[in-house]
C-alpha cells in the first residue's frame, strides 16, 4: 500500500463528502412529509375520532321518502345507508339515494350568497354577505307588503312535503299572497286525480306487491322510478322468492323498462292504449262472471264498447293474449294492476289510470292483501300546491303581464323540466326580481338576481311523511348529519329570518328561531295529537327517540274509506285513445321519453356517481342516446352510434342511436336527465334534454303535461357520435352463465 498523499487525502475527503451529501439528500427526498395532529379546540359532544357514528334522516333524492342512516366519521359524511327501522325502505337504498353524498360534497355547490352583476342569465355574480342578501329580499318583500301589493309575490318550489311546505304556505299567506306553486316533474298528479275519481281518495294507496300473485303493470317502472322504487323492490323480492308461491309479473309498455326486464312477460302495446287494454280485460272479467258485484250490469254496459277485437286492434296485443291476461288476472288469488310511466303521461293519462283502477276493483283487489290497500292520509304535510302544465302556463302568462314582481324559487327547475314552448324562461325575463334559494346553479337559478345558497338535505332540519304510505302512519325527521360544508343556510332558516326582517305579523306568527325549533314545535303537536299513548315520558324523550330512530310510526289497522269506486265513475269509464302531437305522415314515430333510473328527471345529473353509473338497460354512461328497434333502424339505414336528428312539432335535438332490442318498431325512446345547460361540471353540456321535444299538450282532465304524447321524425345526420357504454357483447353466446345445465347446478 502506497502512502496517501495530502492531495489524495483531499480527494478522498471530497468524494466522501459528496457521497455523504448525496446520501443525506436521498434520505431527505424519500422522507414522508411531516404530518400534523390537529385536535379540536373544543370537541363536539359526540366526537370520537376513528369511530363511525350513524345519523338517521330522510332521503330527498326522489319523493319516496326513504329513511337513511348516514355514516359519519370525524364530522364528515362517509356513506348513506338505508335506515333499517324505516318501514318504507327497511334498511335498503337505491343508487340515487346513495349518491346523495355527491350533492353534499359537490364541488359545484353555491358556496355563499350571490348577487347578479351582469345581464340576467349570463352568469356573472358577486359574493355578498348573508345580512345584505336577507336585508335586500326582506326589504323588497316588506315594501310590497306596505304597498299592499304582496299578491305580486310568487313562490315557486319543488315538491316539498312535510312541515317545511306548511312553513312556506304560512309565510306566503302571512305576506298577503296566495301565489305558491310547486312544480315537480315527477309528481304523480294524474294518479292522484285518477284515484280521487275512482275511489274518492286522493292520497296514494299502498300497492301491496309483496303479497300479490299476479302483478300487471301498465307502464309503471315500479323497480326503477315509480313512486317508491325501493319499497316496491322489497316487495318484488318477496313476490319472487320470499314466500311459497312465486308471483308472476307482467309488464305492458312500448319500451322495456327495468321492471319490464324483470317481468315474466313483457308485452309491447301501442303507446297510449293501456287504458283500452285495461278495459278490455275488465270487460272479460265482468263478462265471465269474475266480477259479481250488484252493479255488474252497469259495468257490463259501460264496458260494452271494449270488445276483444277492438281492444286487440287498438293495442296491438293479440286477442288470445288479452284473454289469457284476463283469465290469469281474474283467477289469481291476489292480483294487482298498476299504471304509471308513459301510460300516466299521455293525453288520456287520467282515463287510463281510472281504467286500471277499475280493473282492480272488478278483480276484487281493493283492500285485499296483495292488492290496493288504502292508506289513511299522510300524517302531515302532503304537497298540495302542485302546479301542472295549465297552472304553470297561467303563471308564465302572469309573469309576462307583469303581475309578478318578485319570484321566489326553491328547489325547482322549470326552465329545464318544462318544454321551451311553455315560454317559462321568457316569462321569467319579465319578472323584476327573482330570488333563488338553491344549492346548485341550475338553469333556473342561473336566471336569478339574488341567490341564497341553501343547505343540502344532509345539512338541514326537516321532516317528511312518506307517500305512498305503507299502510300505517309514518313520519320521519330530517336532521343535519354534518356541519355545513359552506356558508349556506337551510331554506327554513331563510324563510324564518325573512319573516323576522319583514316584520308586521310575520315574526309573531312564525316565532321560531330556526328550523329546528319550528320542526320540534310541529312534532310537539304530533306527539300530543297523534301519539298520546307513546311510551315516552315526555316530549323531549319522544323527540330524542324519534331523532335516534329516524322514524316515528304507529301500528294501527289499515284501510279506510273508498273500498269501492264511487258509483258515479262507472259511466265515465272511457279510455279514449291518446292523441299525439304531430302529423302521422310527417312524424312517423312516437316519442317515448322515460325517467332515467339513474338520473331520474335530471336532478341527479350533477352527481358524478350517477353519471358514472351505467344505465341499467343500456349500460350507457355520461350522455344521451335514442333507442330504436333494430328492425326500424335497419329500414332507415341507421347503425349503432349514428348521430340522429330527432325532430318533433316542438323542437329538434341530436342524439346518437342505440339499437335497443326491446322497443316497438314505431316507437323511439329517450331518457330524461341529460342535456343540462347549467347545473355544474358533471351535468353541464352533456347529452340532450328530450323535454325540448315535448309538444305542449296536457291531459284532458288533470291539465298535466302529457310528456308521452309527441310524434317525432328521425334523420340520420351521417355523423358518428360517441356513446360511452361498458358492455361488450350482451349475449351469452351459448355459455353457461345464467342457466347452467342441470348437471352443473
Amino acid at each position, binding site marked *: 500500500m502506497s502512502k496517501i498523499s495530502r492531495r*489524495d487525502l483531499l*480527494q*478522498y475527503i471530497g*468524494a*466522501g*463528502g*459528496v*457521497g*455523504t*451529501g*448525496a*446520501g*443525506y*439528500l*436521498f*434520505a*431527505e427526498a424519500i*422522507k*414522508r412529509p*411531516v*404530518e*400534523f*395532529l*390537529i*385536535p*379540536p*379546540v*373544543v*370537541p363536539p359532544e359526540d366526537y*370520537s*375520532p*376513528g*369511530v363511525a357514528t350513524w345519523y338517521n334522516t330522510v332521503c330527498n333524492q326522489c319523493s319516496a321518502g326513504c329513511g337513511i342512516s348516514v355514516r359519519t366519521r370525524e364530522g364528515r359524511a362517509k356513506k348513506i345507508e338505508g335506515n333499517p327501522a324505516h318501514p318504507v325502505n327497511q334498511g335498503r337504498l337505491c343508487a340515487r339515494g346513495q349518491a346523495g353524498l355527491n350533492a353534499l360534497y359537490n364541488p359545484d355547490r353555491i358556496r355563499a350568497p350571490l348577487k347578479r352583476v351582469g345581464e340576467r342569465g349570463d352568469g356573472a355574480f358577486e359574493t355578498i354577505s348573508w345580512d345584505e342578501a336577507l336585508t335586500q329580499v326582506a326589504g323588497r318583500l316588506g315594501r310590497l307588503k306596505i304597498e299592499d301589493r304582496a299578491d305580486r309575490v310568487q313562490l315557486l318550489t319543488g315538491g316539498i312535503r312535510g312541515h317545511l311546505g306548511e312553513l312556506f304556505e304560512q309565510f306566503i299567506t302571512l305576506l298577503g299572497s296566495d301565489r305558491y306553486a310547486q312544480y315537480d316533474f315527477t309528481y304523480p298528479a294524474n294518479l292522484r286525480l285518477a284515484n280521487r275519481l275512482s275511489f274518492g281518495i286522493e292520497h296514494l294507496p299502498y300497492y301491496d306487491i309483496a303479497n300479490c300473485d299476479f302483478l300487471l303493470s301498465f307502464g309503471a317502472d315500479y323497480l326503477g322510478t315509480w313512486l317508491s322504487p325501493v319499497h316496491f323492490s322489497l316487495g318484488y323480492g318477496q313476490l319472487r322468492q320470499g314466500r311459497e308461491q312465486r308471483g308472476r309479473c307482467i309488464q305492458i309498455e312500448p319500451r322495456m323498462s327495468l321492471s319490464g326486464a324483470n317481468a315474466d312477460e313483457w308485452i309491447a302495446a301501442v303507446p297510449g292504449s293501456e287504458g283500452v287494454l285495461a278495459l278490455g280485460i275488465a270487460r272479460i272479467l265482468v263478462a265471465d262472471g269474475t266480477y259479481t258485484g250488484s252493479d255488474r250490469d252497469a259495468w257490463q254496459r259501460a264496458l260494452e264498447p271494449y270488445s276483444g277485437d277492438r281492444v286487440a286492434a287498438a293495442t296491438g296485443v293479440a286477442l288470445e293474449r288479452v284473454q289469457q291476461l284476463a283469465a290469469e288476472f281474474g283467477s289469481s288469488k291476489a292480483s294487482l294492476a298498476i299504471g304509471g310511466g308513459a301510460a300516466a303521461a299521455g293525453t288520456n293519462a287520467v282515463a287510463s289510470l281510472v281504467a286500471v283502477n277499475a280493473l282492480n276493483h272488478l278483480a276484487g283487489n281493493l283492500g285485499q292483501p296483495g292488492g290496493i290497500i288504502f292508506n289513511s292520509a299522510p300524517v302531515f304535510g302532503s304537497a298540495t300546491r302542485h302546479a301542472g302544465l295549465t297552472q304553470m302556463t297561467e303563471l308564465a302568462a302572469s309573469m309576462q303581464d307583469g303581475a309578478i314582481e318578485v319570484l321566489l324559487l326553491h328547489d325547482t327547475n322549470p326552465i329545464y323540466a318544462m318544454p321551451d314552448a311553455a315560454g317559462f324562461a321568457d316569462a321569467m325575463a319579465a319578472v323584476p326580481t327573482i330570488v333563488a334559494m338553491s344549492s346548485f346553479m341550475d338553469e333556473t337559478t342561473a336566471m336569478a338576481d339574488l341567490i341564497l345558497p341553501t343547505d343540502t338535505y344532509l345539512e338541514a332540519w326537516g321532516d317528511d311523511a312518506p307517500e305512498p304510505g305503507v299502510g300505517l302512519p309514518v313520519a320521519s325527521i330530517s336532521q343535519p348529519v354534518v356541519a355545513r360544508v359552506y356558508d349556506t343556510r337551510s331554506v327554513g332558516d331563510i324563510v324564518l329570518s325573512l319573516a323576522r326582517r319583514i316584520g308586521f305579523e310575520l315574526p309573531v306568527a312564525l316565532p321560531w328561531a330556526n328550523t329546528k325549533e319550528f320542526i320540534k314545535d310541529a312534532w310537539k303537536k304530533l306527539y300530543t295529537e297523534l301519539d298520546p299513548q307513546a311510551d315516552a315520558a315526555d316530549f323531549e324523550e319522544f323527540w330524542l327517540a324519534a331523532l335516534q330512530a329516524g322514524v316515528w310510526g304507529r301500528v294501527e289497522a289499515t284501510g279506510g274509506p273508498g273500498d269501492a269506486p264511487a258509483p258515479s265513475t262507472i259511466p265515465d269509464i272511457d279510455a279514449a285513445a291518446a292523441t299525439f302531437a304531430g302529423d302521422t305522415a310527417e312524424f312517423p314515430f312516437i316519442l317515448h321519453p322515460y325517467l332515467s333510473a339513474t338520473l331520474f328527471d335530471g336532478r341527479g345529473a350533477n352527481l358524478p356517481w350517477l353519471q358514472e353509473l351505467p344505465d341499467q338497460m343500456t349500460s350507457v354512461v355520461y350522455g344521451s342516446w335514442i333507442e330504436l328497434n333494430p328492425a326500424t333502424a335497419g329500414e332507415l339505414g341507421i347503425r349503432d352510434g349514428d348521430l340522429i336528428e330527432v325532430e318533433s312539432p316542438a323542437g329538434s335535438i341530436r342524439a346518437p342511436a342505440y339499437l335497443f332490442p326491446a322497443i316497438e318498431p314505431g316507437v323511439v325512446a329517450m331518457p330524461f336527465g341529460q342535456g343540462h345547460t347549467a347545473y355544474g361540471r358533471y351535468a353541464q353540456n352533456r347529452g340532450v334534454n328530450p323535454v325540448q321535444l315535448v309538444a305542449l299538450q296536457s291531459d284532458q282532465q288533470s291539465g298535466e303535461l302529457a310528456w308521452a304524447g309527441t310524434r317525432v321524425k328521425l334523420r340520420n345526420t351521417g355523423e358518428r357520435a360517441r356513446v360511452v357504454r361498458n358492455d361488450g357483447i350482451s349475449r351469452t353466446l351459448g355459455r353457461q352463465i345464467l342457466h347452467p345445465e342441470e348437471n352443473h347446478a
Partner: protein
Amino acid sequence: MSISVSEALRPARKPALIGVVAVVGIFVGVWINDTYFSDRTPVQPIEFSHRVHASDNEIPCQYCHIYASRSPSAGVPSVAKCMGCHTAVADARERPEVLKLAGYWDRQEPIPWVKVHDVPDFVHFTHKRHVLAGVQCQECHGPVQDMDRITRIAPMTMPWCVDCHTEREVENGRDCWTCHK
C-alpha cells in the same frame, strides 16, 4: 509492455477507491439524516413535557388520550381538555409554555402538534385492539413518561410490527389484510 491484469488495473485503483469512499459516504449520509435530522424528535408548537405530566404528576395516559381503548385513534387532547386542568392548576399558570397554550385557547385555535408516530396511509393500525390486548403504551412509544420532548423510539416499520405479531402469535397476525386493506 506487460499484459498483467493487475498492472493494467493499477491506474484504476484510485478512482475505484474514491468511488468506494463515495458509496460509503452515501450510507453515512443516509444514517446522519436518519439519526440527527429525522422527524423522530420534532420541535412541537408547545414544549409539552410528558415527564412533567405522566411522571411527576402521575396522570395516566388514557386520561388525556381518551380514545385509545375504544377507537383506532388514541386521540390528542383538545385545547379545552388542556385548559380544563390548567385553569385549575394555579402554580403553573404563568409559565411561558402554559401561556402559549392559553394563547391558543384565547384565539380558539387548534394546536398543530407535529406527528411523531406515523405510519403510511395504507396501514390501518388500531390502538383499541392493542390496548385491549394488554400491550403497554411504552412497548411501542417508549418510556414516554421520561421524555420532555416526545421522540420516536420504535422504527414503526413493517418488520417491527410483524416480529411482534409473530412472537405473540397474534391470531391471523401475519395475514396482510390484518393491517392493509
